[in-house]
């Protein structure tokens, strides 16, 4: 432990510093160990067993049985595909929309603050409130969306009770809630672009599109990428909105991986399988987090 002993006068101070660091950091780390790491290790242990929370009884060690069962299950592949469609669809849509709104706002000089604040409201609401309210608006009978479609002379859509439209509805609602997030980050990037770059470009009589492509986009891109990555992590682990809006249905059309884990764990009570499932999901999140951090560091250095 005692490597390279420091000179005497500084020593006591440095030691007390270390004591202070330990005293200040360890309570927080202990809480995380107790509430995150310990449960996760427990889940890791359970993932190698056939334990069931309702059946009780001893857990039997079954090796990688749960993992191979999950990775080869056609059901899980189906859920993974649903999750992929949802994540790509929702994050893609909100990136395009969020960036467009940010771009439009950044070109305004008046009312920028007010506009930004108004646009941010959806993001602040609880997923429960958002889910419930959209459920009401998308109701096939008396929902306001169908009502508006009707008055436009268009047909009624069974938004939440048809397989294909249910997934689309989920994507739409998630996009509604999280477009403001992308907008906020993109706006920060856009307002940070130095004015003189544009001035130089307009002296060179560069076209609008050229300026956008060579000045705006490259400067905003890293920040936008972080926003996308962040949203992808969040969308991948999404549960509450699915639970409230569609409850995974109709059939299994909106059953994402997160929702499937819940069903396996709390409806099927196959705790062991659910744990293995969870561990695999955590691995995916850790990879995504690594990427997120890598870009962050790049951004901070640049």
């Amino acid at each position, binding site marked *: 432990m005692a490597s390279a002993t420091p000179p005497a006068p500084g020593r006591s101070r440095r030691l007390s510093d270390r004591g202070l660091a330990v005293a200040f950091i360890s309570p927080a780390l202990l809480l995380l160990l107790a509430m995150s790491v310990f449960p996760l290790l427990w889940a890791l242990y359970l993932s190698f067993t056939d334990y069931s929370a309702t059946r009780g009884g001893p857990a039997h060690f079954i090796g990688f049985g749960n993992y191979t069962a999950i990775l080869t299950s056609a059901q899980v592949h189906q859920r993974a595909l649903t999750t992929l469609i949802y994540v790509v669809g929702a994050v893609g849509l909100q990136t395009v929309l969020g960036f467009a709104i940010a771009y439009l706002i950044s*070109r305004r000089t008046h009312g920028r603050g007010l506009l930004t604040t108004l646009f941010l409201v959806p993001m602040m609401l609880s997923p429960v409130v958002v889910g419930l309210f959209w459920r009401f608006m998308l109701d096939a009978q008396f929902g306001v969306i169908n009502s508006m479609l009707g008055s436009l002379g268009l047909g009624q859509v069974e938004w939440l009770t048809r397989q294909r439209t249910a997934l689309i509805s989920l994507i739409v609602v998630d996009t509604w809630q999280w477009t403001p997030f992308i907008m906020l980050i993109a706006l920060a990037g856009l307002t940070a672009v130095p004015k003189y770059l544009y001035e130089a470009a307009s002296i060179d009589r560069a076209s609008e599109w050229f300026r956008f492509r060579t000045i705006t986009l490259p400067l905003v891109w890293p*920040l936008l990428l972080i926003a996308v990555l962040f949203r992808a992590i969040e969308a991948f682990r999404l549960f509450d909105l699915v639970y409230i809006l569609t409850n995974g249905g109709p059939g299994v059309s909106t059953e994402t991986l997160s929702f499937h884990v819940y069903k396996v*764990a709390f409806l099927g009570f196959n705790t062991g399988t659910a744990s293995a499932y969870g561990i695999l999901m955590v691995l995916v999140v850790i990879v995504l987090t690594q990427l997120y951090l890598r870009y962050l560091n790049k951004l901070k250095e640049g």
Partner: protein
Amino acid sequence: MAVSVDEAVSTGPARDRTPPARRLGGRGRSVLEVALLTLLAVVMLFPVLWMIETSIKENRDVYAIPAKFFGFTVTMDHFKDVFVAPGGGRSALSVSFLNSVVVAGVSTLLATVLGVPAAWAYSRFAVKAKKDQLFFILSTRFMPPVVVVVPIFLMYRQVGLIDSKLGLILIYAAFNVPFTIWMMKGFVDEVPAEYEDAAMLDGYTRLQAFWRFTLPLLVPGIAATAVFALIFSWNEFVFAIFLTSSDSVRTAPPAIAGLIGGTTVDWGLVAAASVVFALPVLVFAYLVRKHLIAGVTLGAVRR
């Protein structure tokens, strides 16, 4: 020939000159942009307005086909129902609101008390494997809640924390500590370490220097961070629904979600409860609007 947009302001009829869309005159383009922005703002805000409208509508107007945008009877009955039980006395919803206040408040306090000193220590000292520790802290925040809730459920069942406010407080604090550390580290980094060095030259200990000189400068940052933690705890649903079951413990999100359990749904009541529930969040969000970017990215990106 590339013409800058500013020079291409045309007052004449644009159609005659058949300009390419990209070179649309400055004013026409500006009008188009404002129109587009207004349309987007209306679409984004409509659900919120519809929620507020529904909360003050008579029931027969709530279920009117086609939907009534104007000319409905205004009533405050739904808001009354949120707080007062049908037979008089406090409603289950109002109890859940109170639970939310307690759980969100205490968990935020706990996360702040644990997180701020840790953030300071990470910012000031050479801690072993600092980067790995910070990555670990961040990654706990990103774990899928449904995954963590299974072992937490089993653990709580063992120690008797199931269906208790303390159980929720602990898990929310644990989820807010990473956020607090990451966000506060940014704020601490902005306070020059020289202040503390100078104080120590004056004979203060390191702890005193932190307490007397750095901490007061961090207060605005702490307030912003705490508000974000508060919003998170206030809105949280997954742990709340799986770790609590009784009306006396349940927080507001599962209680509001519980309103749609039956065959018929009282959407007026749902709307009123949602409005009451969302109001504090919007006020809080307004208070921390300057720190929004740092807040929503866990403090990792600052403007």
